[in-house]
C-alpha cells in the first residue's frame, strides 16, 4: 500500500537548492534513505513530517495533502517521527517523557497503557523509571523511538537513529526497526549502508537534492556489478580504493582487463551512484 507519494518536490533556502524535482513513493515496509552529508535527507524528512513545506511539487501523505492545516493535522495524527539529534527532557524519566509526548499527540484514552506498550516494544520496561539523563545514548534513542511509535502510526520517519550507537546497540536498533516495519511504512535515513542491507526492503539514494536511485537494496548493489575488484596493490584509475583486512586492495571503478572482480556490496553500489567525480576527489 502506498502511504507517501511525492511528485516534483523542490525546496530552496535562499540561493541554495536543498531539494530539486524529487519524486518517489513509499510503501509498507522499511525504506532506507541514503546520501552524503548535505544531500538533503533531513530536509526531505522534515517535509514529510510536516515540519516545513516544500516550495513546489505535489505531496500526499496517508491520503492527505499537508499543505493545508487540516491535512497537516491529519498526517500528524498518524505519524511517528524521530528527528536527527532528538532532544530529551533530561529530568524526565523515560516514562514521563513518552507520556508527555503522548499528551502532545492528544492520546487521552488509555494513555498510560499506551506508553507502557511502546516502552515494552523498544525493550525499556526495566528502564522506564530512570531519568533520561541517566540513560545511555542507545537507550535514549529507544526512548525517542518509543515516542515515535505512540498510537500505532501508519508512517514512521527515523532520521539517522543509529548515529553514535555502538555495534551492539546498532544491531538491537536494527532489530527494532525491522519489527516496526512489519505492517507499516518506515522511512529510515542513515549513513550506514549496513542498516539498509539488513532491514530495508527498498532504498532511495539522495545526493545534492536529487534522487539518484530508487529501488531494492540488491539493485543498488547491482549498480556496481562488474566495477568492483580486488588486487594485491593499489590500481591507478579507480574511483575509490582501500586496503582491506586481508591485505588486498578493494577497488571501485572501471576495472583493468585482468581484474579479479568480486560481488559488489550495497556500499559499493551507493558509492557508484553518488557523484563519481566528487568521490574521486575525496579518495585521491
Amino acid at each position, binding site marked *: *500500500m*502506498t*502511504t507517501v*507519494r511525492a511528485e516534483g518536490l523542490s525546496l530552496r533556502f535562499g540561493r541554495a537548492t536543498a531539494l530539486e524535482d524529487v*519524486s*518517489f*513513493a513509499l*510503501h509498507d515496509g522499511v525504506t532506507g534513505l541514503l546520501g552524503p552529508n548535505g544531500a538533503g535527507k533531513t530536509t526531505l524528512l*522534515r517535509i514529510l*513530517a*510536516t*515540519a516545513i513545506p516544500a516550495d513546489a511539487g505535489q505531496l*500526499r501523505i*496517508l*491520503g*492527505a495533502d499537508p499543505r493545508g492545516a487540516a491535512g497537516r*493535522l*491529519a498526517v*500528524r*495524527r*498518524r*505519524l511517528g*517521527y*524521530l*528527528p*536527527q*539529534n*532528538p*532532544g*530529551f*527532557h*533530561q529530568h524526565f524519566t523515560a516514562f*514521563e517523557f513518552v*507520556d*508527555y*509526548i503522548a*499528551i*502532545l*499527540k*492528544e*492520546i*487521552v*484514552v488509555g*494513555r498510560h497503557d499506551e506508553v507502557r506498550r511502546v516502552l515494552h516494544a523498544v525493550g525499556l520496561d526495566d528502564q522506564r523509571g530512570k531519568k533520561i539523563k541517566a540513560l545511555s545514548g542507545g537507550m535514549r534513542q529507544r526512548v*525517542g523511538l518509543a*515516542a515515535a511509535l505512540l498510537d500505532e502510526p*501508519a508512517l514512521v520517519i527515523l532520521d539517522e537513529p543509529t548515529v553514535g550507537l555502538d555495534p551492539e546497540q546498532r544491531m538491537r536498533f536494527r532489530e527494532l526497526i525491522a519489527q516496526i516495519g512489519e505492517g507499516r511504512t518506515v522511512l529510515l535515513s542513515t549513513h550506514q549502508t549496513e542498516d539498509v542491507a539488513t532491514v530495508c526492503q527498498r532504498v532511495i539514494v539522495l545526493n545534492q537534492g536529487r534522487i539518484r536511485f*530508487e529501488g531494492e537494496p540488491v539493485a543498488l548493489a547491482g549498480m556496481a556489478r562488474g566495477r568492483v575488484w580486488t588486487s594485491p596493490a593499489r590500481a591507478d584509475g579507480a574511483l575509490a580504493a582501500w586496503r582491506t583486512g586481508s591485505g588486498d586492495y578493494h577497488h571501485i571503478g572501471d576495472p583493468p582487463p585482468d581484474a579479479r572482480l568480486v560481488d559488489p556490496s550495497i556500499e559499493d553500489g551507493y558509492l557508484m551512484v553518488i557523484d563519481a567525480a566528487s568521490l574521486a576527489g575525496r579518495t585521491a
Partner: protein
Amino acid sequence: MTAVLAEAPGTPALDAAAPRRATLALARVEIVRMLRHPVTVAATLLLTGSWVSAWFAIGTTRYPVLQNLDRDSAIGMMMMLGGAALIVGNLAVLRTHRDGTTGLSQVLILPDHARTLAHLIAVLPLAVVGAVLIVARMAILAICAPAAGHPNPYELAIGPATVLLLGALGVLLGRLTRSAVVAPLALLVLLASLVALEPLAHGGKALWLAPQGGSVLEMPTPVSLMARPAAAHLGYLLGLAGLLAAAAVLRAGARGVRVAGAGAVALACAVAGGTAQLSPPDRAVVAARTAAMTHPSRYETCQELEHVTYCAFAGFHRWVPAWTTVVRAVVARVPAPARSAQLTVRQRIAIPAFDRGIGPERLRAAWRADDAAAGTPGAIGIDTSWGDSHAAANLAAQVAYRLVTGEAPVDARDGATTCGGAGVLVVWLAGQASAQARTGLRLLAQEARDERGGVSFYETQLMPTVYVPAPELAVATQALARTRADIAARVQQSWATLTAPSTTAAQAAQILGVPAPATSTAC
C-alpha cells in the same frame, strides 16, 4: 518511479473532546512539575521560613495585627511564590526550546495555544498553595498568638492573585522570547522598581497600580477605619493576570471570539479595579478616622483588671493581659498607699493621614477632653502596636509617672519634664518592670530624640508624654544595675522622700546607694 497501487486510508475518526482533555492532561503534568520544581520548593520554604522566624522573633510580630499582616503576607508571597511562578512558568514554556525537542514537538498535534493554556492553568495551583499558606498563617496566628483584629479576605486573596499575575507574565515572556534569562531579569527589575517606588511615592495613590498595592498606614488601626480598596485591587490584579494570559494564548496562535471575549473581560476588570482603587475613601470613613483619633473612647470598650481599667479598640482586647503584666510589675514596687491612684490605660491612634490639620497640641487637648468625658481623666496612652521593647518601656514609664506624681503629665510639646527623685523613680520603675522594658529604656535613651539628652517616653509613636533629664536617667541606670531587691527595699523605705518635688537627683542617688550624677538638672 514506483507505481502507485493504492492510497492509505484517510484520517481516523476524531475525538472532539481530545484537544480539551489533552490540554488538561498537559496542565496536570505541568502542575506536578511546577510544584516540585526546586525554585518553587525553595520559594515556599523561604516564605514559610520567614513567617516562622518572625513568630520566634521578639517584637511586634509576637502580637500581630491581622488587618496589617494580611497585606504584609501578600508582599512576601509576591516576592517568593510569585517570583517562583514567574520563573517556573517561563521555564515550562521554554522547555521544548531549552531541551532541543522543537524538531519533534512542532509536528505533534496539540496546538501551541492549547499548550500555552495548559501552562497558564498549571500556574493556578501555585496560587492555591499561596492561598493555603496565607490562610494557615492567619489561622495559626489567630489561634496561637494574641493577635489583634482580623484579616480582610480580599487582602488575603491579593497574594495568590500576584502569584497568578507573575505566573501569567512568565508564560507570556516564554512566548515572546526564547531566552531563559529574561524572566529572572524581569523579576529583579519588578522587585527593584517596587522597592524603589514605594518610598518615592510616599504611600501615594500611584502605588496601587503596582502589584503589592498601596502602603499600610503608619500604625495599625481598627478594621473599620482601614478602608483599603482591597477588593478593587484584587479585581485589578486578576484583570491584569487575565490580560497577560490572553496575550500569551494570542501570541501562541489562538484566535476567535472566546479569546477576544476573555481579553475584553480581563481589560474591563483591570480598568474598573484600577480606577476604583484610586478613588478616595468614603467620607463617612474619613470622618470616622478623625473621630477615632480625637475621641477614641467612642470607639473603644473598657475592662477592669486588677483595679486598672483598660480601654481598647475593637479587636485589640487580646493584648490586655500583656499590658497587665507590665502594669502589675510597676505597681508591685510601689508602696501600698501610693497605689490608690485610679489607673486607666487607653489606646490611641495618631496618624498624620487622618489628621486633617489638627496638629499635635490640639490632638492632645482633644484626648484630655475625651478622657474627661469618658470618666477616665488622665488616662495612660498606648498605641496600636505592641510586643516590642519600646512599647513596654513607654507603658511602664507612664504608669510609673502616674504612681510617682499622682497625676497625669502636663501637656508639653516634648513631654512633661520629670526632675529629681521623681524622675529617677519613673525610670527605675519602668526599667525594672521586665527585661523587655529595660531593653526599651536603653534603646529610647540611645535614640535620644531630645537634644537635652535624657529619655522621652511616648504615649503613641509620635507623641512624647514624659521626659526625664540626663542626670536622673544616669542615677536610675546605676540603680537598675544593682540588685533589684536592694533598690526596691530602699524605694519602699524612702518613697515619700524620693517622690518629694524638692528631692534632687543627687539626693536620690544617695538614698539608692549609687554614685551621684556629675551634673544636675535645673527644673
